[in-house]
């Protein structure tokens, strides 16, 4: 699956370099923000491990052998971002040191195997393993399936990249300038090998390693288990509790227009004008144990009511016609202001950089 130089057009290479560099940038940013010191040797040595494991000949059912990518176990132990970096490092080493995979296609190879491979592996593993105990057989199966799908997703991406070349890049006579086969040939050709060999090799190594770690060193599986957090895992991903909080905030934001369903005035939230309105007066009387409100609004209330005029009166900015949208906008504005204050407070609170 290591695409050599010459198979992809320069413009395809440039686009895929762009995607990969963006992913690397995010990874490095995340690492810098957290415990960079401890993570640097961990990812480096893990890349070396992935590189060595790629050289293992793995016996496959049927008597043949295959090589694994090592991206799935990296995604399980380090989380997706750490896996993107460690797999990319191994691929860069292969290209620059052993000439395996091209230089112009390095971006494409990293995009397919490191970026797509890591996220597919991580997503499948988390989805299938769910909250199963660390030592459950389900995790072994989940790792195997994740490995199989990750290798095939990476191969599919490579197949698409190779398959679009003849449609896009031809000379005047119609001869393809780069990889010569269209999508309908390129995708099946590359997938056959991965559905039968490379995918199985990745599945075996991922499942085998998870089974081994379950008995030898289960702590390494906690990072992406969704069950408990280790400092190492926390350093590479945002904590699960925080993520849940974000999901809840988003759900509540969407549900804010439900507030319009409530009719009448909340007790004690009256405006001075409500005291002169016959309809609201009867409402106030009914909710105040039949006690009539005063005929005019109390003078103190009248004075204080004009001190501050809200920018969005009654949760509806003046420029918004739909009350539901007004509610939603107001909620977003409110949450945004809270977040800004929280970020500002966090910035003030940040002392000198902590060394782990």
């Amino acid at each position, binding site marked *: 699956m290591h695409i*050599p*130089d*010459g*198979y992809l057009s320069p413009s395809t290479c440039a686009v895929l370099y762009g995607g990969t560099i963006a992913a*690397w940038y995010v990874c*490095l940013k995340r690492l*810098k923000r957290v415990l*960079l*010191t401890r993570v*640097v*040797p*961990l*990812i*480096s*040595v893990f890349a*070396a*491990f992935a590189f*060595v*494991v790629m*050289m*293992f*000949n*793995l*016996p496959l*059912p049927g008597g043949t052998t295959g090589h694994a990518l090592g991206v799935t*176990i990296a995604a399980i*132990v380090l989380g997706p971002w750490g896996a993107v*970096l460690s797999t990319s*490092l191994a691929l*860069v*080493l292969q290209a*620059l*040191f*052993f*000439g395996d995979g*091209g*230089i*112009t296609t390095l971006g494409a190879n990293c995009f397919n195997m490191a970026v797509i491979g890591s996220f597919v592996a991580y997503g499948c593993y988390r989805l299938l393993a769910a909250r199963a105990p660390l030592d459950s057989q389900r995790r072994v199966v989940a790792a195997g399936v994740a490995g199989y799908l990750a290798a095939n997703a990476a191969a599919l991406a490579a197949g698409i990249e190779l398959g679009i070349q003849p449609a896009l890049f031809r*000379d005047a*006579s*119609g*001869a*393809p300038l*780069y*990889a*010569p*086969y269209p999508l309908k*040939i390129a995708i099946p050709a590359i997938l056959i090998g991965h559905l039968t060999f490379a995918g199985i090799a990745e599945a*075996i*190594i991922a499942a*085998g*390693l998870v*089974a*081994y*770690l379950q008995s*030898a*060193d289960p702590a*390494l599986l906690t990072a992406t288990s969704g069950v408990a957090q280790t400092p190492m895992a926390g350093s590479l991903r945002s904590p699960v509790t925080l993520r849940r909080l974000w999901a809840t905030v988003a759900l509540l934001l969407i549900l804010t227009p439900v507030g319009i369903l409530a009719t009448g005035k909340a007790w004690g939230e009256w405006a001075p004008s409500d005291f002169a309105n016959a309809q609201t007066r009867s409402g106030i009387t009914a909710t105040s144990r039949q006690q009539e409100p005063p005929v005019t609004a109390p003078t103190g209330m009248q004075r204080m009511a004009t001190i501050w005029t809200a920018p969005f009166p009654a949760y509806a900015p003046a420029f918004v016609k739909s009350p539901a949208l007004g509610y939603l906008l107001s909620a977003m504005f409110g949450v945004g202001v809270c977040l800004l204050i929280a970020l500002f407070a966090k910035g003030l609170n940040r002392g000198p*950089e902590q*060394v782990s």
Partner: protein
Amino acid sequence: MSSGLVSSTLENLSRALSHALTSEQIARKPGLMQSLDPRAKVLGIFVLVIAVAVVHKVAVLLGLFAGALVLALGSAIPLRTLILRVWLVVLAFTGVIALPALFLTPGDPLSPSSFVTRQGLHTAILLILRVEAAVTLTTTLVLTTPWAQILKALRLLAVPKEAVMMLGMAHRYIFLLTETATRMFESRESRRVGKLRGREKRHMVAQTAGVLMTKSIDLSQEVFLAMQSRGYRGDVFTVADTRMRPHDYIVILVFVAFAVLAIWWGR
């Protein structure tokens, strides 16, 4: 069969080590590429590889391939190494991929009775030449430049220092882990009696990989503590003691001019 499996893995592992050794030996010999600043080499080869990827004409690609050959031979890379390790390997791999294109590419038949199309022949030759030229160029860079110098060039060419540092560390520990893996396979093999079944073989390889992984992670903790005890606080400092000399600039200019001319003629 298990011995075959282990020996082929051992062969892979030792090939990686011998490759590194050959590269160190060639990099130490006097030669055209060896005399250049690593930045000039990395930039120059990168520009030429881009030219190889851009040009559309077989004659211009042949010219670039000839240029790559001159560069390789002028840098003390033996022709035998080039033929055996580069050209034949590429031909075997890309040839298999390019061959069906002769028949599958739609276009005008070469002769009335032939299944091969003119477009198919053109695309197959382009693909093989392109890959041969690019791999010759990158092999020349890799074999004539020690890894430390490639890293230094990457650092000076504005690759983030954290990334360069991780590449350097990963490279260093590849050799240690390769040796560890080799020993584990050898010791396992020396204690084996009888034949292993497929399932047992898979179990053995996965277990070896597992032990290697826990060793790697322990190693990374030790490396971290060693770094910390030497004052590492998350900042990376690299020593940039290489200096571009006038002839490095001239060589970069020559490489760029060659690449630009090739792109111009090969459009």
